[in-house]
């Protein structure tokens, strides 16, 4: 049975592109996701993906009117970056309910998307479903090159700024006084997150981007003991989920984004179970020891 999937990867370019893209994204997602989790930006990832959707849809709308020299995805990137600044601006209006800014931007993104989908001629249901839940099989060579270029850039960025990123993530005040250019680094991180979200839309869709970025990290922090170990474990979970998602999607003809997200969530629930069992065993042992004493 597995032979069929290997055959498909070797013989069909679209399938091969999709597979390579998924593997590359599976490796870089936990790297970005861990920074997002430590800096407590998980909700921002969701907010930006919804706002980015509006950008893509508006890009499609404009491309129907004039000949756009770039893909609508680039509009998504612009909206994604713009969204981070809008969230920051709106946050300043509230003292105690700062998270409201994200809800406002999500609403704006979804309503703009709905509006422009309805007034754009020739937008098919499969296209919008693709945006929402992903359409990785439509990943072309240019998209694949873009993803590879992005992944290499991430590795170079991490290679150069590993210590600074970790220090900033764990203690912004210390980073500031030890001479790290906090604002510049934060801006770079935000731009990388925005780029990742826009690029990942094609793979898993707007609604499941968080699953790719956050859930492998959410699983590994429950069992990790060191930073490096946690990241490596998150990458393993991410890759396993992608391979499982691919296989299930291939044989059962289910949407790939959903199967990858479900595989991720399945792993998370298994880890919940293991942690729960471990904790209850530890408690029982503790009580037993106390009785013996």
């Amino acid at each position, binding site marked *: 049975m597995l032979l069929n999937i290997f055959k498909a990867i070797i013989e069909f370019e679209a399938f091969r592109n999709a597979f390579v893209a998924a593997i590359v994204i599976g490796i870089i997602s936990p790297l970005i996701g*861990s920074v997002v*989790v*430590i800096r407590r930006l998980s909700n921002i990832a969701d907010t930006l993906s919804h706002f980015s959707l509006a950008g893509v849809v508006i890009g499609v709308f404009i491309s129907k009117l004039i000949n756009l020299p770039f893909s609508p995805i680039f509009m998504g990137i612009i909206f994604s970056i713009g969204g981070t600044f809008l969230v920051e601006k709106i946050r300043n209006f509230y003292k105690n309910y700062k998270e409201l800014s994200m809800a406002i931007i999500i609403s704006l993104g979804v309503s703009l998307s709905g509006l422009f989908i309805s007034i754009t001629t020739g937008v098919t249901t499969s296209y919008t479903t693709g945006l929402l839940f992903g359409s990785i099989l439509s990943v072309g060579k240019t998209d694949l090159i873009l993803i590879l270029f992005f992944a290499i850039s991430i590795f170079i960025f991490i290679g150069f700024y*590993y*210590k*600074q990123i*970790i*220090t900033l993530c*764990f*203690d912004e*005040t*210390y980073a*500031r*006084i*030890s*001479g*790290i250019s906090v604002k510049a680094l934060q801006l770079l991180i935000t731009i990388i997150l925005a780029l990742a979200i826009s690029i990942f839309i094609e793979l898993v869709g707007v609604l499941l981007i968080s699953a790719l970025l956050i859930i492998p990290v959410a699983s590994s*922090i429950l069992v*990790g*003991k*060191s*930073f*490096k*170990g*946690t990241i490596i474990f998150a990458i393993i979970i991410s890759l396993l989920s992608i391979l499982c998602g691919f296989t299930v999607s291939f044989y059962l003809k289910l949407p790939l984004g959903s199967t990858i997200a479900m595989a991720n969530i399945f792993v998370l629930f298994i880890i919940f179970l293991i942690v729960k069992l471990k904790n209850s065993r530890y408690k029982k042992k503790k009580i037993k020891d106390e009785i013996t004493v």
Partner: protein
Amino acid sequence: MRISVNNLTFAYTQRPVLKNISFNLSSGNFLSVVGKNGTGKSTLIKCLLKIVAVPNNTIFFDDIDINAMKRFYHVGYVPQKLDFAYEFPITVSEFLSCAYLKRKDAFFTALINALDLNPIYRENINNLSGGQLQRVFIARSLLNKPKILILDEPTVSIDNESVAALHNILKDLHSNNVTIILSTHDFDFAKNLTDYYLALNEKGEYQFLPRKDYDNVIEYI
């Protein structure tokens, strides 16, 4: 390093938390900032570290306005334990080697040994006790060989043994001419090390007094 604060006023809203505070410290002085909760101890620390925006010409390190300093090369900072609440695993080794922006060298190793961090070097930082975590923070604050060390309530939620260890570390640094600013509600913790007290009260007023006026400090607060 000398510290000079001139007429520092700071307000989050309309009501100032700090009002016209002025004091001067020479190199190697030990200042204890004391006062009840909400009197502005942490705010003063934030001002000194430029975490909040302070007006020009109010805080000087060695006669240089801190607003003109891009980097605080010679300032060490020990945060409150409560400010560090993470679940993401990171070992003491990873935490400190990342904070040390250079490659590990003899100084780094000597610091780890001096603070007795070897037994917990591979431990997840989130599993440490309050006292152990405090030692890690102190090690981190000393990585850039500070001439000024600022500590925000370092004795909160740590055991007596760790408090005594912290006292000895501060004593060593004090004798090595490091200027120390300690924000604390525990008046007795650094009583024998303190050169000056900055006593803050709930009305936003303050008194800057030498150690010999300890009794007045207690009375003022």
